[in-house]
């Protein structure tokens, strides 16, 4: 395969974005994926940031969601209240797809971005929820972007920051959350999804040069691999647009 791991992750994520989607993303690779989708298959998608910018031009790559680079030429510059209204308003909210990162994920797609170890005296402290818990609570589709490692795909999270399927079928409804949350996991090895009945993660697609067994070896919990198929590798056209249009200075890839 003639591309790097960040490139295949970016393209796999971009393919999840449908034309007309409103995309919530952070900076870095997640933003590149949103830009790639806009340039390849979803020209009418809209990128917004939790800091309050909607439909940013992104002529230069921002290094934080609060960056002045998301403000210039944006459709509108508001604040956090506006960003969270976009996610909850039932007209726009149902069109939102989010791209998130995490330190840990469990079989139900719940995320930890807060701490490793005991919360009250953690071994490793991370930045925290930010808007991650909010968007995972509110919107129908969230993609998680992660490295496939045993210490990240864990049986039990040290802290549940952002809700996926909580503890299984019906749990979001019982807790009072709308349907949705984490629906797709894109890693450096594979694409994982969640079974509509059991709400458990399963292996959907594995990348060229990777076997389903290898994917399992990189996880603390086992998942269903019976539906797994090889992923269609990024096409020349997808890579040309990603490299040439989205990140010409190769700052992220």
């Amino acid at each position: 395969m003639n591309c790097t791991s960040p490139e295949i992750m970016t393209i796999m994520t971009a393919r999840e974005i449908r034309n007309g989607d409103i995309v919530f993303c952070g900076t870095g690779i997640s933003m590149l994926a949103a830009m790639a989708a806009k340039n390849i298959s979803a020209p009418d998608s809209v990128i917004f940031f939790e800091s309050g910018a909607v439909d940013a031009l992104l002529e230069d790559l921002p290094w934080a969601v609060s960056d002045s680079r998301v403000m210039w030429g944006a459709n509108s510059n508001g604040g956090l209240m506006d960003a969270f209204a976009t996610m909850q308003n039932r007209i726009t909210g149902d069109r939102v797809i989010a791209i998130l990162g995490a330190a840990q994920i469990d079989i139900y797609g719940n995320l930890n971005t807060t701490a490793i170890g005991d919360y009250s005296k953690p071994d490793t402290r991370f930045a925290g929820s930010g808007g991650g818990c909010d968007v995972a609570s509110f919107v129908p589709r969230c993609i998680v972007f992660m490295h496939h490692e045993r210490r990240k795909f864990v049986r039990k999270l040290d802290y549940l920051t952002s809700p996926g399927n909580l503890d299984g079928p019906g749990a979001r409804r019982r807790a009072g959350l709308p349907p949705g949350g984490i629906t797709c996991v894109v890693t450096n090895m594979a694409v994982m999804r969640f079974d509509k009945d059991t709400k458990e993660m399963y292996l959907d697609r594995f990348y060229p040069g990777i076997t389903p067994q290898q994917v399992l070896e990189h996880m603390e919990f086992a998942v269903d691999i019976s539906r797994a198929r090889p992923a269609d590798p990024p096409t020349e056209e997808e890579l040309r647009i990603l490299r040439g249009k989205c990140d010409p200075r190769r700052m992220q890839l």
Partner: protein
Amino acid sequence: MGDSRSKVMDLDEAVRTFVRDGSHISIGGFSISRNPMAAVYTIIRQGIKNLHVYAHSNGTGIDELIGGGCISRLEIAYGGNGKAATTCIRFRKAVQEGTIQVEDYSNYQMTLRFAAGAMGVPFLPTRSSLGTDIINRWGFSEEMRQNDPKIVGKKLVVVDNPFGSWADAPRVVLVPAIKPDVTILHVQKADDQGTCRILGLTYADIEQAKASRHVIVTCEDLVESGELRKNPGLNQIPFIHVSAVCHVPYGAYPTAVYRCYDYDLDYLIAYAKAARDERLFRKYQDQFIYGVSNHGEFLERVGRKRLEEIKADPTRGYATNLQWYDRGEAP
């Protein structure tokens, strides 16, 4: 027209007047943008301790305050310094070593909490975080809450929707109001009575200001009231909320101010490096914080050349010829 008393003050005096040991404060901005850094460095230089700080996605300012030993309790949604440190270094260290007490919320919850404070209601409802540890795990103990009348008795409370299933929400979580003693903001323009004009994203600055008993505003440009009154629709914070106005050009440096200057990524990366090592960090603080007496001297120490480099392009509002950007470096 309105209150004609000028509130213009020297920053040192404004901080001395409104920020005390044990004050409950919040600062404006977001991660590496529009943090009131001149005020943050002033608080550190004045040796103010035991602050209780409320933050959504704050970064540089909070991390410096923690490094300066000013904060004992922190309610926060996110502590990151952009690409320079995805988790703020001194924040991480302080939480891991237990030298500050921290309680976690989400960004929306913190914004709602400021809004509740601004509206004068005790709480606001949301569906965010239902079923998560943000509700289950408290950072402050029950005992500590009961012994301090300035801290609400419970973290978050889940209730059934009193309107039945109206709006398809069977349950909501109530987030308690925040009423800081002082909120400190840095804005592009203000007049001498404190009316503020923010250019670009406002983050949660407006809610933070209106929730607060006192507001200290530092500004890039101190302008005539008449200029702001020409286009009142562009002003976000009326002077009636503001207690002090301080004219501090580059007052958010090393963080960014849209249309004025960019963040100084070289500074932030050097800071992150120093923050990892106690000896280097003390050296950093001695050089840039304790070794100067005000923000003007700090900027002189940083050097004109650096400030010129990060100057905003007049069209785009940020620096367009940064060396690290041209080098294509992912720090």
